[in-house]
């Protein structure tokens, strides 16, 4: 799988020469009538194929929302699985139009890797998971441990920094995907598995008895996760940005999957809602989309809160509380720019 990806990336680098994409991404997506969305190879709750082969999860829903806003149909998405290592190359080489792969926004990625980040859609932080039998209660007791990490991630760098800062040694065991990390951790190749706390919750939920494993209290980094697009196509970046903002604003305004289309076809007396769902104003036109772009996105996957609750919230196996990922007026930090 990884090898194939690797090869594909290489081929893509040469192939992008052939398809010198001068047309705008929006035109490309419309012409293909399909949104190519780069996601993870499989992280339950974020993006993973279900038993019927349909991609499900938080990131997958954001892909569908963008597809619905642009093409009018949330199912016109081609999911492109990528490892932590191949994701940016795949995006930059044009194998994907947009990336939603629990990706941390950092300066070097934004500037040096030539990405444009969309607004943060999940506030996360790096944590550690250990078997309960190890008898460890703090990350500061991990001196000398073997740690499984996904390569090509910010976690790899945070880990090096954290152990160095605290004067501890460790043995890094580099793995490529979350699956592999899980296998190695179960086999006991490493004592500790580290990744974003949300990823740990997802991995922990896969154990027969999750109580045998505990997530240590230390969160050693800030991991603002968000979507990304290629540098240089501002219109496309704007579309991604405002779809995310619209989903968050929709939760704030009480627009849901159930009522979005209804609201869009009747002009109500709340101008904010009218502007968002497109019954008033020309927001969609400004973006180069249809007037009901946001309503279509919400009708496809629901507002931010619905997406959250369905995929990762307290009633899912992942059991991640809203915490920071709540609206600003409900104790969280989600504060989306207004659609005006």
């Amino acid at each position, binding site marked *: 799988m990884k090898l194939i990806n690797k090869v594909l990336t290489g081929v893509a680098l040469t192939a992008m020469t052939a398809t010198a994409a001068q047309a705008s991404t929006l035109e490309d997506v419309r012409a293909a009538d399909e949104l190519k969305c780069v996601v993870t190879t499989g992280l339950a709750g974020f993006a993973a194929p279900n038993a019927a082969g349909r991609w499900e999860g938080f990131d997958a829903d954001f892909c569908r929302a963008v597809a619905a806003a642009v093409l009018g149909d949330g199912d016109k998405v081609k999911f492109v699985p990528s490892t932590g290592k191949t994701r940016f190359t795949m995006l930059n080489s044009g194998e994907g139009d947009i990336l939603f792969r629990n990706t941390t926004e950092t300066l070097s990625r934004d500037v040096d890797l030539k990405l444009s980040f969309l607004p943060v859609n999940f506030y996360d932080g790096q944590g550690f998971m250990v078997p309960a039998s190890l008898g460890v209660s703090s990350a500061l007791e991990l001196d000398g441990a073997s740690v499984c990490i996904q390569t090509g991630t910010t976690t790899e760098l945070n880990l090096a*920094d954290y152990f160095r800062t605290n004067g501890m040694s460790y043995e*890094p065991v580099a793995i490529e995907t979350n699956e592999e990390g899980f296998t190695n951790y179960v086999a006991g190749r490493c004592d500790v598995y580290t990744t974003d706390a949300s990823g740990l919750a997802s991995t922990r939920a896969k154990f027969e008895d999750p109580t045998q494993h505990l997530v240590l209290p230390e969160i050693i980094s800030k991991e603002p996760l968000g979507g990304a697009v290629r540098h240089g196509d501002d219109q496309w970046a704007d579309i991604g940005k405002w779809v995310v903002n619209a989903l968050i604003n929709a939760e704030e305004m009480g627009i849901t999957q159930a009522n979005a289309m209804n609201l869009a076809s009747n002009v109500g007396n709340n101008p904010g809602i009218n502007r968002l769902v497109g019954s008033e104003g020309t927001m969609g036109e400004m973006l180069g989309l249809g007037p009901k772009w946001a309503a279509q996105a919400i009708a496809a996957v629901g507002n931010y809160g619905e997406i959250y609750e369905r995929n990762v919230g307290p009633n899912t196996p992942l059991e991640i509380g809203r915490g920071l990922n709540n609206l600003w007026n409900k104790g969280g930090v989600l504060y989306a720019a207004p659609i005006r």
Partner: protein
Amino acid sequence: MSTPTTNPLLRAWYDKETRSVIIQIIAAALIISFFAYIINNAVTNLAAIGKDINFGFLWQNASYDINQSLIEYSSTSSHFKAMIVGLINTLLVAVAGIFLATILGFLLGIMRLSSNWLTQKIAYVYIEYIRNVPVLLHILLLYGVILNALPRPKSSYNLNDTFFLNNRGLQMPSPEFESLFWVVAAFLVGGLAFSLWFKRYAKKIQDATGKIYPVGMISIGAIVLLPMAVYFLIGSPIVWDVPALKGFNFKGGIVLRPEFIALWLALSLYTAAFIGEIVRAGIIAISHGQTEAAQALGLSNSFILKLVVIPQALRVIIPPLTSQYLNLAKNSSLALAIGYMDVVATIGGISLNQTGREMECMLIVMAIYLAMSLLISSVMNWYNDRIQLVER
């Protein structure tokens, strides 16, 4: 054949020499313009997304750790250093693999020719099984077996409290040389020099008088026994750093990690199967008449092998053996599958990803493999030239 014509262009075309030159020029132009197109496109497209080709990132901090490093390395070292660490790891597994594969391969080749039915069939089944399954599967299988079949560190297989085997690898004591060790080292170097000289001297004497010295035995004495005796005489100037379980893992000593063991064994076992067949072919190629002629001269069996069969068989074996060595060295890049930190995993993997310099990193990795392969080829070709038939 050619019809006489007055048109000078057609005449040029009908001329065999001119025609081949024209075709060559056209072919060369096509190839050059193809590559020019590709390179130009790559540069243009990189420029389109605002990237250039720049190797400056090599001197920035790598910021990540590598578990197996034979030289001093930390997360504050540069990407260049990370590349060197990866390169050394690649060379380590390639050299160790070539060494083991050669020994196993020769053994298998001889077993295949054995008159003992069981021995012959064992080698036959081994070769057919191993070489018909992709090497990547062997690597993954061995890695899985090591991780799951071996115990955790706390319940390691323990040999005499010095060697420990568990699913974190094989922990072994490492030597620490005390100051007096230079005496032993000096005897070792002296012994080597003496053996080299003695081999020539013995050959000269043999050519002149026919007297044969036991060169092998005397060399072993000079290189192994004498330094060993000196070592014990001056009181064993090596202290062994024995690994001991501390917390999660063993501390001290050196460790062969599961990733290294799996890759090394898989590459060796796989390539050995091919080498076995090459060795068998090489020996069969020497006609039985040669052996009979040697017997008629009254040579003993060991001399027949040493002086008649092996030197001729090597001429057949070496060229295909070279390509097996090359295969092994290049297959070591499958390390990626199990997270062995070779040159592809460091500069071609983590560095590439953290810096986003795909072109640069891939060019570096390709250059490294090319250089490595050319080096192996030239050494093997040099050896091949040496053993070729010298015609007088």
